[in-house]
């Protein structure tokens, strides 16, 4: 295989997973919501996109609608689920992800069920080589990533971001200041789901074929690892985490051909990944990049004042 295509492929995947990791970072890192059903919204985004593209709609509105549908379903789910304790929330979202997958698998009339569906290529022009379409995909994915990144940065560095951090730290205290924790959590959940939906749409677009078995709970955990490695509540850290985890799994796939071990190197890859997470949780629970204080006018003035004195 052409090494250049391989590298470009990795870049596309880093972009897609960075988007999903950002959405989880918004939910878990900033608001403290343990969403273990990330894959459900990824799936919803992917299938919505695929069905709309098949209906012959231009791909840009398709991505937007996919995000809206995922966000809408996210907010519907969140209303009952967010009242729960955090471990219950995790189990409910995990179960929801599995239910969605089973429904898509069982309803053959909806999206071809187990057989999966082919997504018609949307980015295509006369005389385009494979490499050119790949570069076009990178462009699309990274434009979306940039939009999502700026969006999450703005949200989390605004007064709104300070409220959701306050809810993460102490729900009761935040409620005392008149901030409805349910309202904020539901909004964050909807935003996070919508962003994950964008990631799913781009995934469907790039892969060109989706089936229910692509959306196993494993995907959710991969995204969790990205956020934990990079540093929860730090968007730059999340980007780095997504890149590192993606490179690690790809690197392990390449190493497979060179490494001589008596068993399957894929197992080794997961064993190392598991150990890595345990070590991070034990010795560096803040991830590679620690959370930064919010940039505000008041904080700026305090630091200036500190420098002067």
């Amino acid at each position, binding site marked *: 295989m052409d090494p250049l295509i391989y590298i470009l492929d990795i870049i596309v995947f880093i972009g897609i997973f960075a988007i999903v990791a950002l959405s989880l970072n918004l939910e*878990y890192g900033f608001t*403290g919501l*343990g969403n*273990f059903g990330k894959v459900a919204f990824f799936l919803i985004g992917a299938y919505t996109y695929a069905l709309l593209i098949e209906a012959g709609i231009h791909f840009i509105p398709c991505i937007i609608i996919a995000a809206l549908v995922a966000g809408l379903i996210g907010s519907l789910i969140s209303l*009952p*689920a967010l009242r*729960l*304790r*955090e*471990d*219950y929330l*995790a*189990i*409910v979202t*995990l*179960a*929801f992800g*599995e*239910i969605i997958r*089973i*429904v898509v*698998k*069982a*309803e053959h009339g909806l999206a071809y069920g187990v057989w999966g569906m082919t997504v018609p290529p949307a980015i295509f022009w006369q005389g385009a080589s494979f490499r050119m379409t790949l570069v076009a995909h990178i462009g699309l994915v990274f434009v979306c990533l940039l939009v999502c990144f700026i969006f999450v940065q703005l949200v989390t560095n605004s007064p709104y971001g300070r409220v959701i951090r306050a809810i993460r730290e102490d729900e009761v205290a935040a409620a005392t200041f008149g901030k409805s924790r349910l309202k904020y959590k539901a909004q964050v959940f909807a935003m996070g789901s919508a962003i994950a939906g964008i990631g799913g749409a781009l995934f469907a677009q790039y892969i060109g074929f989706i089936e229910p078995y692509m959306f196993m709970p494993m995907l959710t*955990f991969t995204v*969790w690892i990205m956020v*934990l490695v990079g540093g929860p509540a730090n968007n730059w850290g999340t980007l780095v985490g997504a890149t590192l985890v993606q490179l690690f799994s790809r690197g392990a796939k390449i190493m497979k051909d060179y490494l001589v071990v008596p*068993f*399957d190197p*894929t*197992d*080794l890859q*997961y*064993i190392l*990944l*598991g*150990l*890595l*997470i*345990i070590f991070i*949780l*034990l010795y560096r*629970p803040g991830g590679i990049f620690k959370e930064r204080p919010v940039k505000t006018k008041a904080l700026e003035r305090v630091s200036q004042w500190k420098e002067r004195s």
Partner: protein
Amino acid sequence: MISAVALTLIYGLSRFPNFAHAEFMALGAYMGYFVAEQLGLGFPSSFVAAFLASGALGVISYKAVFQPLANRGATIIHLMIASIALGFVVRHSIGAIWNWAPLSFSLAWSSFDVGMVRVSGIWLWLILAALVLGGIMHLVLVRTKIGKAIRATSGNPELALSSGININRVTLTTWFIGAALAGIAGLFRAAGTRLSPLLGWDILLPTFAVTILGGIGSFYGAIGAAFIIGLVENVGVVILARLGLSTEYRMAIAFVILILTLLIRPQGLTRLFRGT
């Protein structure tokens, strides 16, 4: 059912959902397989192997991972992630040792007909073992000192500590028993169907459903809930077929029960069993 009882013990005590539970089951099944098939010691000895191996894994994982984490003030989410990570390590270690291809016990189960229903020997054994284990667990929890200590610690750790209970030892014992029971459950699952490293993972969520419907930490609730969910799943399949829906929703039934329980009655059935 055994699996859910085991899970409920650990969940009640440690207050976080242990996703590595699935791997306790898988390890039990594989150790049983190793002893029974590869060493040729027969099926009964595989019980002992499954019990000891999974129990040891439970103790090791608590000592090496969960206790240090809890001492560092990790949140529930951190503990859950750690248990998932531990699950990776164990699952893929099993995969590396025994390969991913599904294995099966070479035991031939005699089956016989009761009326119109064909009953396989394994199911009778399963029911018998579940009853016996349930009885033993009941006696242990109610009659013995360690059983009382386990219930006290899971109810209120501080109070248990001040009453002179060695919480640390109780916690370790609970992890051992919980994991060991999971191993037995895994062994039965494997004997009834087949062996694969994903064996535990496949039934982890239904197990959670049983645990939560029964009320976390409630032994009797878990037993009652196991019957309810088993019954509802099987009746549900018939209803689904009548309604013209796909029987693939069978799995979804347990999940829906799980979600509904959490939404409507997060304490589960515990109240109903309070008298005991």
